[in-house]
């Protein structure tokens, strides 16, 4: 039994399960995240809420910043590239990044093609709103999936919608007859072999995290109870009143997502949550980027 690079990459995602991946913009924030129990950090110049506020074109972060964050912490470091921007991905691979997020949070570089992720040795995580998107990204070589949610809003509704949809589509696929899978693959626009795997295992063939709009321990626990295997928290931590305290509380909430007693204790006196914006009030829906 030889393990391929792709399997090793899927297995790194398995090690992240039950954990919280936090957006950080400085080495200092990265250290706070690590000390608070983050299982990985996402290095970026601006958190999604600020990207949203600043407008304009949003790109891969300065490699200098990413290196400084890699040196500051011992946990895995991830970074984002624009959808379809395979040269940004080549640059991150040269930095030996632990995971690349081909992310709708940045301005897309290609409105048709995603990156051919099978050409890379480093692993990729991609966002998805439904089962079709998730399996298309996996077919392109993604070794981890996250819901898109609506980044930078602090509004959980989109992440809930995406997670519920993916789970209910998986349940539907499991209930199909062998001979019905061909039509389902056609409708979902996904490879048949991946759909067979979903039917056999009753889950995505890679780890599936929740992302986009998580701001409180309760939000994180909600996503876990809906079937997420871990969470990304972007703007929710460092846009709040007490980042370290909130970060620690969210880490504990993901471990004890089924224990309301512990959840109520850790939700006390966290200071102000990020103010957030209602996802219905915004003009730019990042989740619509790259299907």
């Amino acid at each position, binding site marked *: 039994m030889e393990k391929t690079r792709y399997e090793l990459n899927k297995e790194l995602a398995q090690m*992240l*399960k039950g954990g919280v991946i936090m957006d950080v913009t400085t080495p200092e924030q990265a250290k706070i995240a*690590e000390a608070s129990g*983050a299982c990985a950090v996402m290095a970026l110049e601006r958190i999604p809420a600020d990207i949203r506020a600043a407008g304009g074109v949003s790109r891969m972060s300065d490699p200098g910043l990413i290196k400084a964050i890699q040196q500051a912490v011992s946990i895995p470091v991830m970074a984002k590239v624009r959808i379809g921007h395979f040269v940004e991905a080549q640059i991150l691979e040269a930095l030996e990044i632990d995971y690349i997020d081909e992310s709708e949070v940045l301005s897309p570089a290609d409105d048709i093609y995603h990156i051919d992720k099978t050409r890379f040795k480093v692993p990729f995580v991609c966002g998805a709103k439904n089962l079709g998107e998730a399996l298309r990204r996996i077919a392109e070589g993604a070794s981890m999936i996250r819901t898109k949610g609506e980044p930078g809003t602090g509004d959980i509704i989109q992440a809930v919608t995406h997670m519920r949809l993916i789970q209910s589509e998986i349940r539907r696929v499991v209930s199909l007859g062998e001979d019905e899978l061909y039509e389902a693959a056609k409708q979902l626009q996904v490879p048949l072999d991946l759909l067979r795997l979903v039917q056999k295992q009753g889950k995505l063939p890679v780890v599936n995290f929740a992302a986009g709009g998580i701001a409180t321990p309760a939000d994180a626990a909600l996503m876990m109870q809906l079937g997420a295997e871990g969470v990304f928290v972007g703007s929710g931590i460092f846009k709040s009143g007490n980042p370290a305290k909130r970060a620690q509380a969210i880490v*504990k909430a993901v471990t004890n997502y089924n224990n309301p007693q512990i959840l109520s204790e850790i939700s006390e006196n966290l200071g102000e949550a990020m103010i957030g914006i209602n996802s219905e009030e915004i003009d730019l829906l990042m989740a619509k980027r790259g299907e």
Partner: protein
Amino acid sequence: MHIGILALQGAFFEHGQMLDKIGISHHEIRSVADFLKPLDGLIIPGGESTTIGKLLSDLQLMNPIREKIQNGLPVLGTCAGLILLAKQTLTNGYPSIGTLDVVVKRNAYGRQLGSFFTKAEIAGIGSFPMVFIRAPYIESVGESVQVLATVDDHIVMVKSLRQTGVAFHPELTEDDSIHRLFLNDCIEYEKSRS
């Protein structure tokens, strides 16, 4: 016989699957109440050792687990689990259980690009498929510690009384011999208590 699997973060589910295949009952440990349920052995899985260590402290699990291991509870630590069992870890001072007399180097093979698969001999088991994910290795061991496997001259598996420390991930393979080795200790422990 019944096994507890520390489920604070990481690949605990995979260890459960392995025990299911062997036919051993188990439960997940996320709180002190979970740890107080009767158990004949403990598995500490892979994941991020800093995360699991922080949660062990915050959830008041560190001391009870340390005491029980010192009193003979068999334990299997894989990857992050090995780091948490180690008496000393090079690179940082995060809290750990510290019952296994070894010095461990975290991220010893570098970042994810350094992750690899190999096969190597384990004393008493034979050739074993080894998955190393951002793995540690053991720099040195105390007198009471038996070295069971090395890869490229680095120690990757040890045993000391009923503590088994493994730098790689047996739970990600089909081979259950390391789990069975640990379960032998658990049978002995169960007998010694009854």
